[in-house]
């Protein structure tokens, strides 16, 4: 172990870590609402909403994330959008992530007994209110474990941003290795920091599940595994 080398590169690694955290956060914060509306659109009675959403989800779920990322990096500027590397990476990751997350959210909504919809409709409860008060409280406990699992995959996937010139944790670790030829030290540090983020997500998950269980007096499954 060359602690001194680690110390030399720590500021850069730490910066990369912060960028990874920021990128993960922004990507999840943007793709979650998009995924939510995609999931609703896929269930919609209106073909005008259902079709585009279905095509979107199936296309971007089928493509390698890296392809989507390169597309955002190289192609979007061609359409007159001048994006920084971070913005391009965010766009690419959001496009891909929202397609995946939409499926997890949709699965939760689809698992709600159709009788609930019939009962709410027959009572005359408006759709958005029924969604908020009746469908979502039943769908969220079902969606949560796959959602967190997917969120963890998305956090790890931000490493791909290092390939489009974002100086994230992976980029900084790889740079340090290529200069120092000390792969083990820097890989260990990078791994530990990724673990840290995802451990946080796992903690969030069990907190959320405990809250749900308390609220509904229901037993829910244990936390998702951190490492995929």
């Amino acid at each position, binding site marked *: 172990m060359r602690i001194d080398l680690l110390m030399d590169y720590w500021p850069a690694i730490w910066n990369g870590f912060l960028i990874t955290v920021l990128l993960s956060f922004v990507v999840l914060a943007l793709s979650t609402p998009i995924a939510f509306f995609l999931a609703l659109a896929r269930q919609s009675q209106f073909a005008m909403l259902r079709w585009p959403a279905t095509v979107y989800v199936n296309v971007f779920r089928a493509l390698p994330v890296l392809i989507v990322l390169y597309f955002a990096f190289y192609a979007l500027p061609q359409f007159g959008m001048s994006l920084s590397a971070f913005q391009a990476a965010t766009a690419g990751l959001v496009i891909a992530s929202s397609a995946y997350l939409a499926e997890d959210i949709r699965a939760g909504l689809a698992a709600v007994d159709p*009788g*609930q919809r019939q009962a709410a409709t*027959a*009572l005359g*409860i408006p759709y958005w209110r029924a969604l908020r008060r009746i469908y979502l409280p*039943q769908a969220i406990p079902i969606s949560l474990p796959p959602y967190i699992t997917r969120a963890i995959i998305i956090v790890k996937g931000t490493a791909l941003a290092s390939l489009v010139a974002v100086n994230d944790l992976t980029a900084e670790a790889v740079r340090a290795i290529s200069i120092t030829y000390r792969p083990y030290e820097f890989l260990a540090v990078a791994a530990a920091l990724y673990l840290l983020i995802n451990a946080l997500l796992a903690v969030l998950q069990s907190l959320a599940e405990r809250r749900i269980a308390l609220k*509904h007096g229901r037993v829910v499954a244990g936390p998702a595994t951190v490492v995929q």
Partner: protein
Amino acid sequence: MVEVRNLKKQFGSLVAVEDVSLSVKAGEVFAIIGASGSGKSTILKCINFLEPPTAGEIWVDGRRVGVVQTGGRLRPARASELRLSRAEIGMVFQNFNLFPHFTALQNVIEAPMAVRGLSRRDAVDLAKELLDRVGLGDKFDEHPRRLSGGQQQRVAIARALAMRPKVMLMDEVTSALDPELVEEVLGVMKTLARDGMTMLVVTHEMAFARDVANSVVFVDGGRVVEQGPPSELLRAPQEARTKAFLQRILRTDA
């Protein structure tokens, strides 16, 4: 109170209901009987537009459901207009369909607050009164999974009544119950009938149809085969298909 005129409902190429006309007077209990798949549930669902009819007219309390007339023109009702119609039509389902994350009381107050704009306090007062009326005065704070099927169905009836509906649609509301729980739900329905509630009841309980209904209609293959007071239709059916159906039912009942 409820008029169904030449109702037709098609699912793709399957015609589930064809040329059904029914007339239910205020305060009447109207029983619909028929074999599985004959279209009974579909008729009820068309009345409150849970399933929009393919053709035909639905009238409840003198108002057309699902269609609005503006300046001599007819147009489909908007979602908000449909909700108002539905609020006048209570529905109770075979599988109760209570909201599982709500207590009995929360199940009952949700729609009056959301649709009728009742304050929480008024809604709670109303809900307690109704739950009392269906014999669940001691179960306000129980979640549905802690209640028996019969109790759940009575909560569902209270939930529908909380909208102060003009008519109640009841779709085989005792079919999912253990035999010993059927009576407590039928008892509530009889009380409702006595209090003058207009009800359309899909049922396999022939004794209930005989004792409580004012009118019985037998449907087969999505069409009305025969219609009349229970004393005639159940005792002396005219049509061969009605006879055959009643014989089957009575044999399995015995």
